[in-house]
């Protein structure tokens, strides 16, 4: 097991280097003169040329790209994400609390999505081709076809404007969390329900289920113990991949509900051309995704006794 985890982490190294390379490119590709962006208005004509050279040297901008990349990676490894071009505050400070907000939203959405998605999938599979199944699958296809931001607007229209149950803009309380979490969670449940259903149908068709039934086992026991345990295994992998969908979805949904997460800031940073913030947010989101997927993979190995760890 330990060897597997080590191997899996080593396997991540090139992915992490790739992520750093992409975020590094964000800075390199931005055409605006970095020096004037950082110190606009603070330099007079006379000393600007000299000062610019000093600043360029300070940020290693006078070095070849490879050396710049080295300094960038070393900064990141020391927890230094640079300072925001716009506010001049350290990026880590700007991102910190917002990261927790986004994680809170993602976790709440994940719980909602998993609960609704998996239970709908099980019921649909068990009552295949009934009114419930057909309705649930139609609704889930609607969910997959709905632009998430439009769904969010519809939720606001219904719950905040018409019914006046919830605030239009998130205020940080649980009430403000409710709509964005349901927005992301319900969209997640649409794909989870479909996957759980097909996985469950496959398992219910297996010989060992027929055997269990032939033995005269209680139907509940067959479905929840024998079938569900096996049907959920592929679903776990999908949940790991869908965490990426949640993180990406947060970038869109946070802007609909005014939820103060990294997604809200990230989109603004791209518009503002604040490359240090953009870099930091993309780096931390991609890293979170990679690490969470590692956790899911390891979990999978622990849960599924059939997976024999190769050497």
């Amino acid at each position: 097991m330990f060897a597997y985890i080590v191997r899996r982490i080593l396997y991540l190294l090139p992915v992490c280097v790739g992520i750093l390379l992409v975020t590094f490119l964000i800075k390199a590709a931005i055409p605006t003169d970095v020096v004037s962006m950082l110190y606009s208005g603070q330099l007079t004509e006379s000393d600007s040329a000299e000062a610019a050279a000093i600043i360029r040297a300070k940020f290693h901008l006078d070095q070849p790209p490879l050396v710049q990349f080295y300094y960038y990676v070393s900064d990141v490894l020391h927890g230094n994400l640079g300072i925001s071009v716009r506010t001049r505050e350290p990026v880590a400070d700007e991102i910190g609390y917002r990261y927790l907000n986004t994680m809170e939203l993602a976790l709440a959405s994940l719980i909602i999505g998993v609960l609704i998605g998996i239970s709908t999938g099980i019921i649909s599979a068990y009552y295949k081709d009934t009114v419930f199944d057909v309705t649930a699958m139609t609704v889930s296809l609607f969910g997959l076809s709905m632009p998430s931001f439009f769904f969010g607007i519809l939720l606001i229209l219904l719950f905040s404007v018409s019914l006046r149950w919830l605030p239009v803009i998130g205020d940080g309380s649980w009430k403000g969390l409710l709509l964005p979490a349901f927005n992301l969670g319900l969209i997640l449940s649409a794909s989870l329900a479909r996957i759980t259903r097909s996985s469950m149908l496959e398992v219910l068709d297996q010989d060992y289920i027929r055997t269990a039934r032939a033995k005269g086992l209680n139907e509940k026991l067959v479905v929840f113990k024998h079938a569900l345990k096996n049907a959920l295994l592929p679903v776990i992998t999908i949940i790991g991949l869908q965490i990426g969908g949640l993180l990406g979805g947060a970038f869109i949904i946070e802007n609909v509900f005014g939820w103060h997460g990294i997604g809200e800031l990230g989109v603004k940073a791209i518009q503002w051309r604040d490359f240090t913030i953009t870099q930091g947010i993309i780096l931390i989101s991609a890293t979170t995704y990679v690490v969470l997927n590692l956790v899911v993979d390891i979990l999978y190995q622990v849960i599924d006794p059939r997976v024999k760890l190769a050497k």
Partner: protein
Amino acid sequence: MTSARTPLKSPSTKVAASQSPSQASRIGRHLLRKRSAQIGGVIFLLLVFLALFGPIITPYDPFDIKIEQRLSPPSVQHIFGTDEQGRDLFSRIIYGARYALLIMIITTVIGAVGGLSLGIPSAYFGGSADMLVMRLMDVMLGFPYILLILAIVAILGPSLENAMVAIGFANIPTFARLARASILVVKEQDYVTAERALGAGPTRIMFRTILPNILSPIIVYVSLTMPTAVLAAASLSFLGLGAQPPLPEWGTMMVNARDFIVTAPWVVLSPGLTIFVVVLGINLLGNAMRDVLDPRDSATRMS
């Protein structure tokens, strides 16, 4: 419906040509019998029709600003109402069909051409180049889909063209993996060995012998990426990172959505519902095509 037929009918492929007419018409018949394919097909054909003949149908110029008519609710003159600058929403939505179709085509072409031209030689030759390409794809898949698109947009800058490039680019790794997996199965088949024995070069074998035989999973995947691409492009535009105003792109039309939810909901509802219906149509068509072309795989690939 017809789109499944055309690639196989193409006369340039010797292998497929001998069986294709009957095979293609069989697939076509199967598709036509499915309710989901009928509904999806009608929606898709309508989209193509509006994209081609939009300017003839639209009652107003989609860019024509008439401030005195701003935010008028749906009426006989403006059946979808007007937006905050008095532009006719119905005309803007019809013009938007062009962008939707363009987005689908460009992103798919970039993704498929990029993915296939990386994945096919990589799988065919194997070795260290294969390793390298696949690790590169792993890196791209290390990003969540939307995040990779946002990262590319951050590098290139926000515009419709860059959004399409970013989405197409983000589609490359899955196409490459799909092509690779298919090639690994096919490349040891007898007809490939036979071609090689006849002295065909690797390029000919890869793209004229093998490619036509792995088309069906690729067509299925294309039909599944198109709705995702439309949603991603609309989301980018909605965030102000894709198509820019005053382009009548459906996502762009919803940029100021929140300001009008209460006072003029039609401004938000008409583009939103249009995106929904179009994506639903392609999803229905794609699901039907997957059932017909690739029945064994229907369980796992759905996202």
